[in-house]
């Protein structure tokens, strides 16, 4: 178990390193740097002024030196005025150091968001909190419904209930968030007026059924059918197992067979599926946050990418890759823990 964990953690670290390096390379492409310089300097800046801004803030230093600076294994340099040689902090709104210091991800410094003019940690913390809230409600809605639908349709394979629920599940998996979001908003916000088509007020702490239902339902729908399908398949497999037949022959009631014998074993596979669904939901969260104007992680990611906010973008990719890898690890371990027939080695 210990060596399994150590190997997994090693692979995780390597993946994170490779991935951030790729992102770092892409955001530092010449057109992207120019975009950053244009958004950070005043209107109508000449190309010389843009170049000057990039040089002054250290964007022209060697690629790997800058990556190492971001990691924290190379000292972070202050901005140096080429005329006077005086050192000043790079971005005053982030209280960056005046003298070269080691300050990177390893030291817990995620850098400075040029778009939001604040420390990345401040911006990201608030955004993650908001998204965490959204995710919590999504999970609270999606998992019970999906499991119930899957178990009900899987316990009598081929019945009318099963067919109806299966078609509904397939329909929800074919409805991406930007489609269900539009349809739900039209029906419940524009036509019926029951719910709010914008969750902007939810960001400011006024969370209510009125403004938060549509985003939560929209994210849940796409994943719900998928989990339900997997639960159904797992339930069918269990219901055909020998020990269920034995229980039936013993004359137990159908309800007791399902609840006492089948349910626990049928829920092992969906656990893995739900864990692996997290990264997939992330895309949905981005779409929904943009669509309903909810200031969370997804909105931050889109803003960062749209403005080439290098540090924020790197932090966002770090967070999401951590989420992906952590859920993978949990699903591996949890699967072994739930299923005594499998041992991690």
């Amino acid at each position, binding site marked *: 178990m210990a060596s399994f964990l150590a190997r997994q953690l090693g*692979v995780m670290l*390597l*993946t994170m390193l*490779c*991935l951030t390096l790729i*992102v770092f390379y*892409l*955001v530092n*492409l*010449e*057109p*992207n740097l*120019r*975009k950053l310089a244009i958004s950070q300097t005043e209107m109508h800046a000449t190309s010389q002024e843009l170049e000057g801004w990039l040089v002054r803030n250290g964007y022209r230093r060697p690629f790997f030196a800058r990556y190492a600076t971001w990691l924290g294994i190379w000292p972070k340099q202050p901005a140096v005025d080429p005329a006077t040689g005086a050192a000043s902090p790079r971005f005053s709104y982030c209280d960056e150091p005046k003298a070269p210091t080691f300050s990177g991800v390893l030291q817990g410094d995620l850098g400075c968001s040029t778009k939001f003019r604040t420390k990345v940690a401040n911006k990201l913390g608030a955004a993650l909190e908001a998204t965490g809230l959204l995710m919590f409600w999504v999970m609270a809605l999606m998992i019970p419904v999906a499991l119930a639908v899957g178990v009900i349709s899987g316990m009598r394979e081929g019945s009318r209930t099963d067919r109806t629920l*299966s*078609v509904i599940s*397939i*329909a929800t*998996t*074919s*409805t*991406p968030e*930007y*489609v269900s*979001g*539009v*349809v739900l*908003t*039209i029906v419940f*916000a*524009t*036509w019926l007026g029951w719910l709010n*088509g914008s969750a902007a007020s939810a960001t400011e702490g006024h969370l209510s059924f009125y403004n938060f239902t549509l985003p939560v339902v929209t994210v849940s729908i796409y994943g719900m059918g998928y989990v339900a399908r997997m639960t159904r398949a797992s339930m069918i497999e269990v219901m055909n197992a020998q020990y269920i037949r034995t229980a039936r022959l013993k004359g137990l009631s159908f309800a007791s067979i399902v609840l006492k014998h089948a349910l626990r074993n049928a829920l092992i596979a969906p656990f893995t599926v739900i864990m692996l669904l997290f*990264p997939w939901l*992330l*895309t949905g969260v*981005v*779409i929904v946050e*943009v*669509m309903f104007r909810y200031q969370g992680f*997804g909105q931050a*990611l*889109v803003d960062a*990418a*749209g403005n080439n906010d290098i540090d924020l*973008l790197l932090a*966002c*990719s770090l967070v*999401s*890759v951590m989420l*992906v*890898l952590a859920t993978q690890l949990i699903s591996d371990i949890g699967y072994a823990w739930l299923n005594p027939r499998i041992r991690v080695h």
Partner: protein
Amino acid sequence: MQFLSAGQIVLQSFVRLMPVWASLAIVLGLSLAFRKKLGLYGHVVQSPTGFVGLFLVGFWLFAAIFGRAIGLFDPLGQIAEMKDALPGAIDPHSGLPYLFGGDKLARDVFSRVIAGARIVLIIAPLATLLALSVGIALGLPAGYFGRRVDSVLSFLANLVLAFPIILLFYLLVSPGILETPIPCTLAAIFFAFPIALFSVFFVAGYRAQPMKHAIRLAATLLAGAWLFATFVFDADPFGLMRVSPSTLNIFIAVALASGPGIFRIVRSLTLDIKTREYVLAAQTRGESPWYIMLWEILPNARGPLIVDSCLRIGYTTILLGALGYFGLGMPPESPDWGTMIKESSRFMRIFVHPALPPALAMMSFVLGLNLLADAIREQSLRD
């Protein structure tokens, strides 16, 4: 301004779609009539889910084929009076109706949805095919050889899978990146896979029927060269097709996003199939590894791969829509469904009608593919 009544809108839309209904009736009728002789396909047509799936996919396929004949207006054309026109409004100049109304820029929603079908139905299946060839070309050796090859390839696949898709799209499909050599390099790598796959396929089978395979190999290389010139360098020697850099970029991004998933499936199928007797027999005969992979393992993995491809085209359509929704890659006036949803969702509180048709189009097409995949899986498990 004059309007058609609701009944007239339905009737006229039905009439406009006549070529689609006629083709659907012919194809589905023939399929049902000869279902006994059509093997698995016959069973799929006969099952209710399969029939509905085929109907929906066929509908959009024929809508894409006959697109120019169905649409009443130019999908990009603007008629100033028709701005935000409600469904059924009649254009005073031509006397023709905007069946589903006009959008914010006074374009006909009906014609745009039909024109969008063409874009979606060209890009999504082709990008899936590209991803499929990459996934097969890498998944087979990863599963067959195992060890180091598998570790490296699986690591790469997991790396891409760990990427949040939206971030990948923002980084790869931004307009700035077109100035860099990255899209072309990636395209060159990606399009090399199908060519290499087919070449190796024929070279490995060369011993059995030398003449036949030599001809096929030559044909592959010629077709591959044309494909390469057209897609990667946008320099079709015959001038038949033009692939703009931004379209190419979409191809690459979508293939990159769905390739690792296919890789994983092919890999696990290979791991399963390589322990079968016929593979062991081929190994004992001393066949080369590539012969075994491409001529013994791949044909036996086709069932799950066909089902997955069906689902995958739907997924690719969704990704394509997401690209459009975030305004990446496609030109802003493009009539593809994702861009249409984005454009109309901003004014959804006031005007509903431009948002609904593309949303329902996207939903029904993907639903059709998913139902079809489900029917194929069910029918193939039955035998």
